[in-house]
Each structure stands twice: as C-alpha cells, then as structure tokens.
C-alpha cells in the first residue's frame, strides 16, 4: 500500500433525467491497488461523513462479468485500458496528481437516472423482442445431444461474451447499438437451438433497436475498440447478412 495517489476528479452530477447536470470537482486520496470503483467508494465515504449526497454509480459483481459498471473516463467508456470494465480498472493506470473526468454513458436511449447511473432498459426491450430461443419443457436434455462443430461453438461463444454493458453505444458517435444487437443475433443465429426464430428474431430486434432511438451504424469501429469483452466488428457484418437474408425471405 504505502504510497498514496492524489486524484482530482471531475464527476458528472445530475439529480434525474429531467434536470440539467454539471461537473463537480473532488480530490481523492487513493491507493494504486484500488479499483476505480473502490476509489469512488472512498470518495462516497468522505461525502457521507461530510453530510453530502454520495455519487450514484452502477456496479454489481466487480469482477468484469455482470455489465453493470458504466463510466466514461476521460472520454473513454471503461477508461483507458482495452478489454476491461471499470470495476477491473485499477488506479495504477493513472498518475499521481492526474485530473480524471468521469461521465455517464451519454445517449438519448440511455437516460440518466442519477449522476453516473443510466437506464439501460432499452437493451432489455431489444432482448425481449427476439433475443431468446424456444425449448421443450421437461427434463434437461443431455449436454451433447445436439452436435455443434467446434468452430461454430467458438464463434457463437465469442459473441456470447457480450455482457450488455452499453460501452459500444457510449463510444459510438451515433450512439448506435449495432455491436450489442450484432453480438446477440450472431450468438443465437449460429447455434442449432436458435434456428426456429432465426429470421423473425433479427427483424424484431432491429425494429426494436430503431424504435428505442439508437443511431445508425457508420462503421467507425469505435464500439469494437472500446468493448470490454472485445466483441469483433464482424458481428455487425453478420447482423447485416442475417437481416438482409430475412428480408429477402419476406420476413
């Protein structure tokens, strides 16, 4: 522990969706071994002791798999490191005396609930519109009763690692959700279990994505570059293919 770092934070404060927000400056003493969220815990303890309103931020598992943490740090979702979520970003990635700007995901489709916490229900509604497979009830079937080639399983799994955090939307200059929808459609359309809804799914999910107010994709690649799970841009090409195929078949 020994050495502590002084961090100057510029944090976004916003009471709710309907009020104007502003940046608020705070000084925090942190250990280089703390995670970024633990640094916020320290700051919030201070704020509570001073009788002030602590900063609202989303978090849950703190081990990079739940997709709850959602901070834009110095203009980059989940901070300066590639392939990590905010909870797995450590203060050693910053220098003593750094000024760090922390903001919520910004997109019309993700309204601010409070401070750094945003409402990502739009993703839930996209999933509900088609991100599922139909299965028979009864006993669980044997794990290997449906044969899936290793290559297919690997590609589907790569897409399935999407944790739905929304970093793709926050990084995109158009606030587009194509990487998220591409990952979900790719995962389900590749597997045998996903075939019954293959065409209706992609059309329903794209329609819901458009209805939620996300922007259109212009292939800048910012989403894939900032994705903490490193979902590749090829899932968007695959989403396009799946969508055109469904449309050509009259869906």
């Amino acid at each position, binding site marked *: 522990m020994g050495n502590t770092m002084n961090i100057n934070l*510029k944090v*976004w404060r916003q009471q709710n969706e309907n009020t104007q*927000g502003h*940046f608020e400056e705070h000084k925090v003493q942190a250990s280089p071994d703390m995670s970024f969220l633990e640094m916020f815990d320290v700051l919030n303890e201070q704020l509570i002791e001073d009788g002030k309103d602590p900063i609202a931020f989303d978090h849950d598992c703190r081990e990079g798999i739940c997709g709850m943490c959602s901070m*834009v740090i*110095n*203009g*980059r979702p989940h901070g*300066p490191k590639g392939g990590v979520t905010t909870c797995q970003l450590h203060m050693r990635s910053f220098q003593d005396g750094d000024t760090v*700007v922390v*903001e919520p995901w*910004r*997109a*019309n*489709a993700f309204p*601010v609930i409070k401070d750094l916490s945003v409402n990502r229900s739009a993703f839930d509604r996209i999933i509900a519109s088609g991100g599922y497979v139909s299965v028979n009830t009864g006993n669980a079937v044997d794990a290997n009763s449906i044969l899936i080639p290793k290559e297919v399983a690997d590609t589907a799994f790569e897409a399935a690692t999407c944790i739905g955090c929304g970093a793709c939307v926050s*990084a995109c*200059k*158009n*606030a*587009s959700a194509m990487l998220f929808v591409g990952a979900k459609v790719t995962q389900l359309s590749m597997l045998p279990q996903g075939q019954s809804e293959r065409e209706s799914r992609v059309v329903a999910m*794209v*329609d819901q*994505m*458009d209805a939620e*107010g*996300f*922007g*259109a*994709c*212009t*292939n*800048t*690649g*910012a989403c894939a*570059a*900032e994705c903490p799970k490193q979902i590749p*841009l*090829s899932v*968007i*090409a*695959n*989403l*396009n*293919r799946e*969508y*055109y195929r469904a*449309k050509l078949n*009259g*869906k």
Partner: protein
Amino acid sequence: MGVLSFVFSSSLGRKLIMAVTGISLIAFLVVHCAINATVFFNDGGETFNVAAEFMGHNWFIRAAEIGLFVGLLWHIVQGIWLTFDNQKRRKAKYGANAGNANSKWYSRSMGLLGSIILIFLVMHLKHFWVVSRFGLPHELGHLEYASGAHLENLYIEMINVFQNPVAVIVYVLGCIGLGYHLLHGFGSAFQTLGISHKSYTPIINSIGVAFSIIVPLTFALIPVVMHLGLIK
C-alpha cells in the same frame, strides 16, 4: 414494395442504400479515372477526346449516366439526412472526448468530407459536364487530328479551366476530400453488405487503401500538370 420497404424505413436498409450507391460510385470512378489518365499520353488530347466522344454519344453510357445521377443524388441526400439524424441521437454531449483513441478521424467525418466533395462536384459539373452535354455557357470547339478524326475538343476545355490557379486548388482539395472519404467508405461498404471474413477482409481493406490513394492522386495530378504546362 412490400417487404422491400425496409430500405426506406429501417436503419439497416438506409445503410444498405449508402453502401450500394457508394460501390456504384466507386465503379464510376474506375472508368472516369482510366479515361482521364489518357491525358498523360501527352498526345494533344487525341486519345482523351476519342474516349470522351464515345462516353458522350454511346446510348448505353448515356442510359447508365441517368442511373449514376440517381445513385449520386440518393447517396448525397441520404448521407446528409443520416449525418444530422445520427447527431440527434446524443443530445447531451460528452465533456471529455477521446475519439482518436478508438476510431479514425475520417471515419467520423464522412459528412464533412462528403460536403467538401459536393462543393467540388458542383464546380466540376459546371466546368465540364454542362459544357459538353448542353453547350453552356459555350459550345465545345472541334479539332481535326492527323488520323482524320474530327472530334469535340473537351481536352482544350480542361487546359483552359486549369489555367486558373483557384480552380486547381479547389480540384486538389476536392481530391484530398475524396481520398479520405474513400479510405473509410471503400471498406465500410463491404462491411455493410455483410461481406466480411477474416480470410478476405484484409485483402478488401488493402485494395481500399490503394484505391483511395491512386485514384484521387491521378485525378489531382491532371490539373496540376496542366497548370504547370507539363502536358499541353
């Protein structure tokens, strides 16, 4: 229209239109660039004027020209609309921006680059297309070559236009805009069409980079060498 109405109503349909019209325009650039490059033969423009004569009077080319203009206008109008529509999707702007950390500036500036090309294009069509098709503001001159060919002299029109340094600068800037527009647009069009695989996408992207340098450079050299009197 039925199910195909998605090309107007869905974000993926509009994206498809941008890609298809974009690839058509790339195909047009191949022909345009190849024909223009014949001025480098430095044969007093004979080869160029023969090619211009063919392009101006062949019925198939004239029909394709209508398609080209429809595609071009659709690309422009939808591009402008998409640029503004996409900007509205994030009403609250970021306080700190780090766009260069995750994407190329030209991929985020297609609307701006397209606008530069559009300004150039208006000037360019006035200089050559309106003159050769409609004889406005003046008819093209004719030229008798040693081979006996009697041709409209579009070539001398180029020489004349590029005596003006302002025109040369606008043309070179237009070509730089075109180069960066293509640098993103070429690969992006294939990605949009869903033509993407780790085996061949690097090849498409390499061709895209080469195309985005060679074609605009060839176009930009013509006004420069003509202005400097290196070809006459």
